[in-house]
Every structure is written in structure tokens, then in C-alpha cells.
């Protein structure tokens, strides 16, 4: 470009372009301002920590989903996988008396098998990712339920033979679910995946596959291998989410991970546009989760009744999506 060209670099201000890039962040700031002025305690440091703690599980699960979205996939089974991980890890302690580390290791190993099954079905049968993982979502939800015989697993629960369960949940394990560790785990996960997707060759390959699978294949990228890795990563983070969930509530409720799916999907999709990335990305997903977390927290502070919460939550999400995706033709 010549000098005259670079002078004209200063482009006219595009309003919708600006919204696309910063819409989510602006919404977050607006919500903070609104809730901050309308309530006294919203901006307290304890409430801020509270918000971060409440979004940590959603964020961890959503980050796994983000990786599956990056290769152009869509792992709908993350909620079920989290439920399964929750049931497995608690049962390892309560039923089998394992140590903290071994319980976590066994749980993650089983959940990676889940990822392997998803990847195998999606890659080999060439069925749309969303449809296939919708099916496996039910399967793994059922597996988790069957494993717990449809009951909650907790310390001193009554076993089918009439005895009390004798295993104890290790103290060290419980720490994972408490501040500050739960927040630290979330931030490490976000940072690690951000670095992986943006600064390693593997992350670059994943975005290429997501952007244009045919061109990626013809560029010599091992497409199937990377799709497999993406589903393994997705299952891994769903497992971590389920384990942290278990550590937080110290038991395994029926289908405890299920409700996290839709919040995770929302967080990941809101994250597409953050800072103009235009594709699934870890930081954006985190911002999406923060938006959802602030919203829920603020509405509770404003004493909005729980049964009306979803109306407001859904509306604000729709608004956030509308201003970010309303683009010039």
C-alpha cells in the first residue's frame, strides 16, 4: 500500500461491526452497571467470587464443547458425560473406598472411552455430529442412571443389600469443589485451551478443519485424527466438569450434569463473536459463561422469583445474540 492508501486506512465507523466485536462485553458491563446500582451487595468481592464459583462448572464443560465446535463438530453428550463422571467419581469413594487420585484417574479413563465412542460413530458413519451425539447423549445418560440404579450416591447411603456404604469421600477431593481451587481449575482450563487453539499447530489444524474440511483434507491434514482428538478433549473436560461438580455437592444426584448442557451451548455460541473472533474460542466461551452467570446472580439479588428467571435469562441471551449477529448483509 502506498502512502495515500495508508492514509485512507482509517475506515469509517461501522456500528454493527463494532457491536459484533464488543456486543457481549458491552452487555456484561451494562449488566454489572445495572445490577451494581440497583443492589447494594452485587459488587461485593464475596459476591464476585460467588459468581465465578457458580460459573466454573459450566465454563469447564463449555470449553470442552468449544473444542468440538472448533473442528466443525458439536458434542451434545457433554452433559451426560458430566453426569456419568459425577456418578463414577463419587461411587469410587463411597462404594469402593478408592483414594482421591485413583478415583479421579479411573473416572477420566472411562469418560475418554465415551469420547472415543462418539468420535468413532461420528467419523465412521458420517452422520451429522449433532444428531449422533444427541443419540449418545441419551445412551450415556442411561448408562449413568443404570450405574447408580437411578438413585443418589452419597456417604452412608443404604446399599441394595441393606448395609450402609462405608466409604468416605476424601477431604482432599472435597477441596477441588471449594474456593479458590474451583476457580483456579476453571481459569487454568480456559487458559490452557486458549493457548492450545491459538498457538499450537494442532489448534490451527482444528480451526482449518472447522472452516473448510475439504480444503483441510486436501492440504494433507489428518482430518479424522484431529476430529478424534477433539471429541476426546471434549469428553475430558466434561469429565473434569463432572468431577468438580461431585466435589462441590459431595454426592452424585440423578442426572446432575444434564442441566449444564444448554448453558454450556449458550456460552460457547455467545463466545463466537467476542472480540470479533468469528469462530469458537476459549476466551469467548468464558465471556459467554460470565454473561450467563452475572445474569442469574443479579436476578436473584433483585429477588426475581425463580419461576420467572428463565424468561429474563432467555430474553437477555436473545438480545446479546441479536446485537452480535445482526450484521450488514
Amino acid at each position, binding site marked *: 500500500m502506498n502512502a495515500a492508501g495508508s492514509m485512507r486506512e482509517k475506515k469509517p465507523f461501522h456500528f454493527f461491526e463494532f457491536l459484533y466485536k464488543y456486543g457481549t462485553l458491552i452487555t456484561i458491563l451494562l449488566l454489572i452497571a445495572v445490577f451494581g446500582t440497583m443492589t447494594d451487595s452485587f459488587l461485593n468481592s464475596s459476591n464476585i467470587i460467588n459468581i465465578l464459583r457458580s460459573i466454573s462448572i459450566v465454563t469447564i464443560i463449555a470449553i470442552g464443547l468449544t473444542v468440538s465446535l472448533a473442528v466443525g463438530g458439536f458434542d451434545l453428550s457433554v452433559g451426560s458425560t458430566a453426569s456419568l463422571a459425577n456418578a463414577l467419581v463419587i461411587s469410587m469413594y463411597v462404594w469402593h473406598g478408592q483414594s482421591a487420585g485413583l478415583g479421579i484417574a479411573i473416572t477420566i479413563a472411562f469418560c475418554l472411552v465415551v469420547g472415543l465412542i462418539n468420535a468413532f460413530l461420528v467419523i465412521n458413519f458420517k452422520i451429522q455430529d449433532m444428531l449422533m451425539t444427541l443419540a449418545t447423549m441419551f445412551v450415556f445418560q442411561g448408562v449413568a442412571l443404570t450405574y447408580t440404579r437411578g438413585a443418589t450416591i452419597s456417604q452412608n447411603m443404604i446399599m441394595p443389600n441393606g448395609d450402609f456404604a462405608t466409604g468416605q469421600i476424601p477431604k482432599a477431593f472435597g477441596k477441588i469443589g471449594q474456593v479458590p481451587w474451583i476457580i483456579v481449575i476453571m481459569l487454568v482450563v480456559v487458559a490452557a485451551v486458549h493457548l492450545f487453539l491459538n498457538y*499450537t*499447530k494442532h489448534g490451527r489444524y482444528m480451526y*482449518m478443519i472447522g472452516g473448510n474440511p*475439504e*480444503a*483441510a483434507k486436501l*492440504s494433507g491434514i489428518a*482430518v479424522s485424527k484431529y476430529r478424534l482428538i477433539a471429541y476426546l478433549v471434549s469428553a475430558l473436560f466434561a469429565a473434569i466438569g463432572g468431577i468438580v461438580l461431585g466435589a462441590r455437592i459431595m454426592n452424585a444426584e440423578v442426572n446432575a450434569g444434564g442441566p449444564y448442557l444448554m448453558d454450556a451451548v449458550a456460552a460457547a455460541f455467545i463466545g463466537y463473536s467476542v472480540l470479533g473472533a468469528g*469462530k469458537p474460542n476459549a476466551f469467548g466461551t468464558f465471556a459467554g459463561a460470565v454473561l450467563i452467570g452475572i445474569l442469574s446472580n443479579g436476578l436473584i439479588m433483585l429477588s426475581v422469583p425463580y419461576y420467572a428467571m428463565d424468561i429474563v435469562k432467555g430474553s437477555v441471551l436473545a438480545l446479546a445474540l441479536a446485537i452480535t449477529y445482526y450484521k450488514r448483509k
Partner: protein
Amino acid sequence: MTVSAASRLEMKQISIAFPGVKALTDVDFHTAAGRVHALIGANGAGKSTLMKVLAGAYGHYTGHILMDGKEARIRSPKEAKQHGIQVVYQEVDTALIANLTVGENIMLEKTVHDMTGRHWVRWKGLHQSAQAILERMNVKVSTRKLIQDLTLAEKQMVLIARSVAMKCRFLVLDEPTAPLSKTETEQLFRLVRLLKSDGVGIIFISHRLPELFEICDDITIMRDGRLVVRDEIRKLDHQQVVEHMLGAKLDGQFPCRKREIGEICFEARGIHDSGKVNDVDLHIRRGEIVGLAGLVGAGKTELCRALFGASRASTGDMYLNGRKLRIKSPHQAVRSGIALVPEERRREGIFVDEAVSVNLTAASLSRFAKWGSWLSSAAEKKAAVEMIANLGIKTPNEQAKVKNLSGGNQQKVAIGKWLLVDADVYIFDEPTKGVDVGAKRDIYDLVAELAARGKCILYASSEISEMTGITDRVYVMYDGRMIKELESDKTNEEEILLYSTGGL
């Protein structure tokens, strides 16, 4: 299908321009009911544009269209259909609704246009009318079968049946035989003769000379948006048709090359791919540019993809420097030292939403990764900036998104990606398709330079002038087979085109 025998269609002084191009200049065309008229020309000669004008796809042409000597106003597809002009385009799948039945598809336009004020579909009547049309056409397909279960040939029959269901005085068939087998082609010809005897005027676009001479009565040859010849087809022979299609040659658009051709480096034997490529053998010497000529649909793209491991069903043996290659996927092909610049640039060659630098390093990313995977953005940027300068890619900077570049520059990016890889064999599939003249010259230079560096080049193109202009040796494909090998010095465009069109 009731037509008076004297029905005539005339197009007079048709001109049309698109931004930057004059597509047609004063073209006259005329044909009559009950005649089969061949329309032929090289790529970009304007035959499809002319037929689109007739079909009412463009409203902004100048000139006149006359039916039976009376001025016919055709500016929209609807008006064209009212005058009884029906077109069956090459891409049959775009015109059919795959999850509806044959009967519904045949009667589609009747259902859309002739049901004003009625709301209930009479299924029995619909299938009876569709069945009656198919029977008259002598086509044996159940009207209740779904379109998605049909073969390509049957789909074509359904489209022709739909045209006949409406008022049909002139039927345009745009390269109908390209995807058909020999028996399917014969079936189509029977149908064409039947329609002809019913008094329908048929305009038949094809590149296959033997077919045209078999089925057509008259011929119009076009070149560069102009009419060249219109005559009865029996007054011409293959050689003359080819000469008229090519016309005078342009000189100076190809680079002069010093040829240093070494020993045989790449060899492929017995390449097969599910009916589209049949038993192809080829070899390329070091520093040699080997052309792959043939018309659209001759199997060039399929062969290129088979050599690159991008086709699932392909079989055959490949050798590089005497070593047998095991290639089941493009990933293995790239590792073995083979590179492919694919034909469909936007779909297969580039990542439109990514930056130029990301595109350029896509195939060689390992070179820019430290400790096995950590990307060095500085090294990547340096390589990208150098490549942009070397290839003369016009982009504001290496971070610009590829979708904002022009077609020629996108193609340079798609090629540049492979220059960073340093492969032994480069396969180019229609690299100058949709590229402006200046960029074309740059691409020829690039190909020549690769050859000078001792690479093996396979250059597939349906632009015949490129074969004589840039290659050392030419393989000609026809119907999935390698039918001729020619020395580029000792041949000419007429000969190549003659073999490509199945002449001789």
C-alpha cells in the same frame, strides 16, 4: 405438443454485457421445429449465455427474439416458458426436489402455475398425467419412486418429461450426455428423435463431436461471444468444426522455457476410480510439465484426486523415484511428496475466513512449530511475507482474510501453500479457471519455474491453448480413458481438441 411444422425460432443481433466483459456480440441464431440443432464452442464462447438469454434468465440483452416471424418478448423465465421454450440444464440435481416423487417433480410447474384458486392436490390425477407423459416418452420409471433413488440418466428423463408436460416448442439440452453411459446416451437419443418427430425443435449443446454428427441436423459454432458458422451439419467434418471453434491463436501469453528433462521420476499404473477413471497409466520425468487434456467430465479431476489419495474408491499403483507409494489419503500423499492444487478453489483449496498467512502455511505448518507443536508466529509471518512478495499476491498485508482477495490472488494463495512444502510432484487441476489474464501469466511462470527446479508437473486443463503453450507432453483423456499421448512440439490445438472430442 401440438406444433405447426413451420414453427421458427429466430434470435437476431443478440448482444449482452456483464460488468467488465462483453459476453455476446451481435449473435444471430435460428432453428425450426422438428430440427435438432447443435450448438458448439470452446469454453467461454458464449453458448450457455446465448441459451440463457433464450430462457429469459437475463433481461438486459439487446436484440430481438422472433417466433414464427413475430416479435416475442422474452425477458424473464416465465415469458420464455409461455412461448414454449424449455431448458434442461446440466446440473439436474438443482432443478429436482430429491425427496419428492417422480410424479410430483414432473407435474411441479403445473402444480405451481395452474392451480390458481384450487387448494387440494388430486394425487390420482397427478400420477395419471405424469404416467401418461412417461409412457409417451417410452421411459419406464414408476411415478411414485423418489427422485433420490433414481440414476442420473433417469433424473434427466424426468426433467425432460417436466418440460414436455408444459407447452414445449423448443427444448434446449445443455450438455446432456456428459454424465451418461453409452446405453443411457442411446436411450436419450431415442427420446430426442421421438420429440423431433413430434415437432419439437431441439437445441443440443455438447462437446462430443461424434454425438453431434449422429443426432443433429444443423450446427451453429460460436467463438468469443460471436457467431462463426451456421450450416447443415452434413456439410462439415470434424476437422472443420474444430478449426472454427479455435480460430486464430494468441501469441506471447506463455513463458519461454529452457527444458531440462531428466529421468522418469513419478509413475502411475492401472489407476481406476469407480467408472470415472479407467485403467490409466502415466509417467512424469523430472523437470517435465505433462499436460492432461480433455473436456469437462472426461475424468481429469477424478484422476488428479485419485493420484492424490483423495478418492475413496480409487485403485492402482504409484511409484516415486522407483519406490512404491502407499497412498490412501491426502495426508499420506503430502508426506510422500505429492501436492495438488484442486479445481474448486473456494471449496477445496483455500480457507476463506482465515488470513493469507494461515492459508499459505496450511500444508507446511510443522516447519513453523517449535518443540513439535508450538507455533512461531514470527517465522510464519516471515515465510508468508516472502511468499506474498514472490508470487505478487495483491493483499494489504499477510493478515487480510482470503475472502477479500480477487479470484486470481486466491488462486496464487492456493498454489503458494504448496510452494512452502517442497513436494516432488505437483498436480494442477484447472489452475487458471476464473482467473484474469495477468494472473494467468503469473501462474504459467510459476509452473515453469517449478519445472526448472526439477519438479514433476501434471497440468490438467480444458483450455487447449495451455496444452500447446506450456507443456512438454500431453495425455488426452476421453470418457475416463487415456486415449492418446502427444508430444507438445509435434502437435497442435486442432489435434488435441479432435482427440478430446472423441473424433478420429
